[in-house]
């Protein structure tokens, strides 16, 4: 029997979470969906959180391929934990699970004025939880890793021995951060934070830092599994920095201090 996911696990794995009412079972809003016992037309009543593209679907019928094994009846309202699947004239989503509205913790079932912002807040919460340390402070300088500098010097002197050139090169930089306060974990002294300066498709969403930038920094050790694979791409061999930042939610400016304090429970 598959392991039943907790509400929090569901919330982590689903990007489009909404309260919906089942309009019809064994039916779909799209011809391309192969209808079975777990296919339903569901009206989106209220969106709890959502990517931008689905944030205007309140009041619309969509197709939900039900997951999780629970039964549901026509006319029943539930919270659906879903991810995108098919997009045409209508939309179909894959539900990881659904839950009676009454059984969903209030914190997870609260309908937000801006479901996109709520999803962004959840992403930040995830990064806060994953971070080895969280500090607030200021970027004092941004530099090229020392071994990259050395490699480039060699390349200038002898172009035939230059390292591989790829359009997906992350163009690593290291931001030196003057730490004013530590909010999670332990860290002493300034922190060096590696980030990809590249605007290539593979890296453009990663945070870009500049001298003078102030805010909260979610610090992840490069060896941590979630970031290691991506960080290994063209990684400097020596000057790796203390931490690496790859997710847009790894930084919050001070004007969002209230949200950060809320996430940190401060």
């Amino acid at each position, binding site marked *: 029997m598959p392991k039943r996911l907790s509400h929090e696990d569901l919330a982590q794995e689903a990007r489009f979470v909404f309260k919906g009412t089942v309009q019809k079972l064994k039916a779909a809003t799209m011809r391309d969906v192969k209808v079975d016992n777990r296919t339903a037309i569901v009206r989106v009543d209220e969106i709890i959180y959502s990517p931008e593209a689905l944030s205007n679907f309140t009041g619309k019928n969509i197709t939900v391929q039900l997951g999780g094994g629970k039964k549901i009846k026509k006319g029943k309202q539930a919270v659906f934990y879903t991810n*995108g699947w098919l997009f045409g004239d209508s939309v179909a989503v894959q539900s990881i699970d659904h839950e009676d509205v009454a059984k969903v913790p209030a914190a997870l079932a609260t309908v937000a004025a801006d479901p996109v912002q709520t999803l962004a807040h959840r992403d930040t919460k995830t990064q806060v939880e994953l971070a080895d340390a969280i500090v607030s402070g200021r970027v004092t300088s941004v530099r090229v890793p020392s071994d990259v500098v050395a490699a480039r010097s060699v390349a200038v002197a002898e172009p035939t021995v230059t390292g591989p050139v*790829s359009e997906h090169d992350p163009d690593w930089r290291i931001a030196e951060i003057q730490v004013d306060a530590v909010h999670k974990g332990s860290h002493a002294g300034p922190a060096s934070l590696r980030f990809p300066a590249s605007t290539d498709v593979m890296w453009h969403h990663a945070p870009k830092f500049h001298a003078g930038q102030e805010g909260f920094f979610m610090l992840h050790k490069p060896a941590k599994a979630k970031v290691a694979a991506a960080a290994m791409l063209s990684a400097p061999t020596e000057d790796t920095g203390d931490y690496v930042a790859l997710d847009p939610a790894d930084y919050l400016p001070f004007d969002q201090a209230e949200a950060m304090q809320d996430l940190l429970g401060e």
Partner: protein
Amino acid sequence: MPAKKKSKKAASKKTARVSKKKAAKKPVRPARLGPMGFLLINMIPKSLSGETEQDSEPHLTVNAGNPNQIVGTAFSPNPGGGSLAPIYFSLDGGNTWKLNAIVPSTLGSKIGTGDITTCFNRNASKLYAGILRAGTGKLEFLRTSTPFGPAPMTVLASRPNADQPFTHATTVTSGPDAGKDRVYIGDNDFAAVPKSQTVDESLNAGIPAPVFKSIRVEKRTTMGQDGPQCRPVAHPDGTVYAAFYRWRASTGSFPANTLIITSADVIVVRDDNGGAAGFTSLVELPPPPGDGLAGKRVVQGISFPFMRNGTPATGQQRIGGTISIAVDPNNSSKVYLVWGDRQPGSFLTLHVRRSPDRGKTWIPHDFLTVPNATNAALAINSAGRIGLLYQQVTGSGASQRWVTHLRRSANGVNWDDLVLANVPAMTPVKTFDPYIGDYDHLVAAGQTFYGIFSANNKPDPANFPNGVKYQRNANFTTHTLLGLDNVTPVTVSIDPYFFKVP
């Protein structure tokens, strides 16, 4: 009153019948549109009318046996989140398009997938793909037998440190290997530097656990690596070609966006045994005049920029070469090739050449020369007609335009010119590189050319001189994209476009 209603209904049916008859006699075609049967469509579906992503670097594959089935790809994230990126698909010959999230990715990925190309096998019982996976950047080879269903594609192989996978697949039609799927994925493998050009191939890719072998197709010395483009194409008789840039020397700096490949060769390799001969079937003559190595150097010592970032001078697009090869489906000896190099006054100039003898010799003049262009894609249809898709920058400054052309020729001498799109090059401002993609794609099925490209999506009829169809909400009178409510204005972005021309 029922009687009157019935009579009205009957009249209406009669009118409809008459209209249908008229339509059958003379197909209705809006004025000012392209050739008969031409279709150009913005692939973003209606439910995503509010989307503003930079959906660049498109690619497509067509089921040759049933060209109603088409799959496209681009840098499009899953609009509904999740750990799968979407493909675009059509089941009605490209008249409507939907997205189906089946490509392995990373939960919540903002890019969906890195580089992606797909190809059906011969009867489209399987769809193969080569991707750079979001989150890890790993080169992965994928397969599915249900591209229009919900099941995620299966990962057949995965490894780090390679770039720009370019997928081609076919199925052996006769002989002892009949029925076997052969998959060729060209890539630039940094694990093989300095001779990085590679074709990863499986000669029996349809089995549950196919083996992929890395064929190092670069046989000569390089400046430390080759360029990223490696384009394989197969003929049903078992001939397989691939074309790539051999990088020999450079100046400038990639990080500083000043890198110039000062000396490169365009090389064509061939395998006469479906890939089993290691792409060594085309060997140059011993010196002089050749060097006795596998792979024909079609042109030597060319130069072009290899840019980290697009600039205003290049229509926001990073330029780094472009290459494409096509084989005549009626005669595997007849091959067309296009490449790009830098010429005075042109950041990249396309050159189309032809070989009549399996790549051994190449007619030493351009059959077509196009300045300031990139994303060249060649195909040859069943009538031996050549198609060339490319995107060209015209004008300068704020009036600069990206003009997407399809050129066709029966003989390589006389070319027609179908302008697919003529859009502003400086809007929207790019959100990442590449602005419109490091490639687009063109294929032929029967006599029809099918292609895909990315461009500005402003709904302005003047931008699409041969007509265009939008699925997403748009007002072509006010030139405004509209959201899901068909009211709220949506900002202009880069969208993928599909076209077909009989």
